[in-house]
């Protein structure tokens, strides 16, 4: 079992890279990336039209 210190270092490498919007590939696990979503209009079920703000979200693509 991997110790907590090692796990913290691994997660720190991944999270710091993601904060810089860099894509990371971890063999056997998958790739982490940051996707940008432009601001867009969307309509709710009740008829309201919202202006959704842009956003940067983390995307994970698992290895098979």
């Amino acid at each position: 079992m991997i110790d907590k210190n090692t796990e913290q270092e691994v997660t720190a490498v991944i999270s710091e890279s993601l904060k810089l919007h860099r894509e990371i590939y971890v063999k056997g696990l998958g790739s982490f990336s940051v996707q940008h979503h432009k601001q867009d209009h969307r309509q709710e079920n009740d008829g309201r039209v919202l202006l959704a703000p842009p956003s940067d979200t983390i995307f994970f693509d698992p290895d098979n």
Partner: protein
Amino acid sequence: MKLLHDDIISLLANALNIKKVKAEELLAEWVLAIRKEVEQKGNYHADGLGTFVLADDGKLEFKPEEKLAIEVNYKYAGMNPIEILPAYNRKIEQESGTDVGKEVKVTSMSSFDQESAGKLEREDDQVPGDETEPVGTDPEAGPDDPFDPDDSFDPFAEGEEDEISQDTTEKEASEAIEGSDDIKSEEEAAEDNVEKEEKILAESKIDKATQASPVDKTTGKVLSPASRTLDKSGKVQMSAPVSKDKEKVPETVGMAKAESSAAEVTKRKSAKKKSVSRGKDFQSIIWMLPIAAALILAVMFFFHFESQILGHFRVPSTVDETVVTPSLEEDATIPEEEAVAQDDGVMAQELSETTEEEDSPFGLMGPEDEVLHGSFTIVLHSIVNENRARIEKAGFVEKGYKTTIWQVRHPNGSTTWRVGVGQFESVSDAEQAIPELPEPYRSNNFIIRIR
């Protein structure tokens, strides 16, 4: 830039001060632990990164920690959707009783115009107004109408004394009312009616007094009419000396009767006056009701459209965004009281007024004379460093853009400086201005409300 597996191993080896082979082993062990725990428990949480879960389709999914997600999304952190079109279409459909499913769907926001939204809302607001009728505007329909001849409150309908004079009075009164209906108002007719009734009553009392007046049996003459006068209160005054015969009794009886009937006239007069005044009060109340309703509706309309003009349907934000005055030079141009005390109502009035002026504060280019809270701007930069944000702002100002800079405080305590160009009355105005921006800003921007 993409970090590959070998890059991570190098970074890990440097961080743990171990060899790359050992670092690779540790990384493989970590990946294996995640896979194993997810298969056994369904999830695995890595501190500082997030949680791995097993999806229904057997694939591995990752949910980042909220703190990491905010930090990755630092440019847009705290931004919430802006409601630019409320769900009033549904309200219209529901009020008109049609199928909700047939509501008009807004498919393209590029065609959205707040003016049209306002019109739609006005139409919506007219629906209940058309159905509402002022209550009690027909005075004849009211059971308490003091001028209704059939009204049981009429004091002339009470009592059984002086039936003849009363019948005559009522008949003439009703005739007077019927005759004056087309010409005079009901109030005037009632007043005339009262006067006529008083006259008729007084005459009838005089006649009765005459009938009851004694006949001087010695002379065989009736007492002279000149001997009987009416004082101002309508009482019959017997001024002439009466006969001192034994026939004095009928005379006193007649006098007493005349006096009692005159007192009755006075009573009825005061009662009628009361009823007339009550009728006036009632009528004034009837007229006040629709006026009060109209006033309330007007106030509701005012506040409703005011919010519509500004698009004040914002979702409460957890981020405290404070608009910073554009620059040190411009600080002096913005009245502090105006900047602080501007409430939404004043803003709506200002927005509507300023659009009519030639030097409108809205637009993409031009000097930013004042920061209009509630208006929209196109954000081109979201920068942590304040100095860098001010440098970017200065660059846009040099190019002639209306530029605003403000600070955003995030829930985690961090701050971001946003640089926006242009001030726009609506989102659609801001969208129309985006093609005028140079690249890369034309394709990388977002619209936000200045708060």
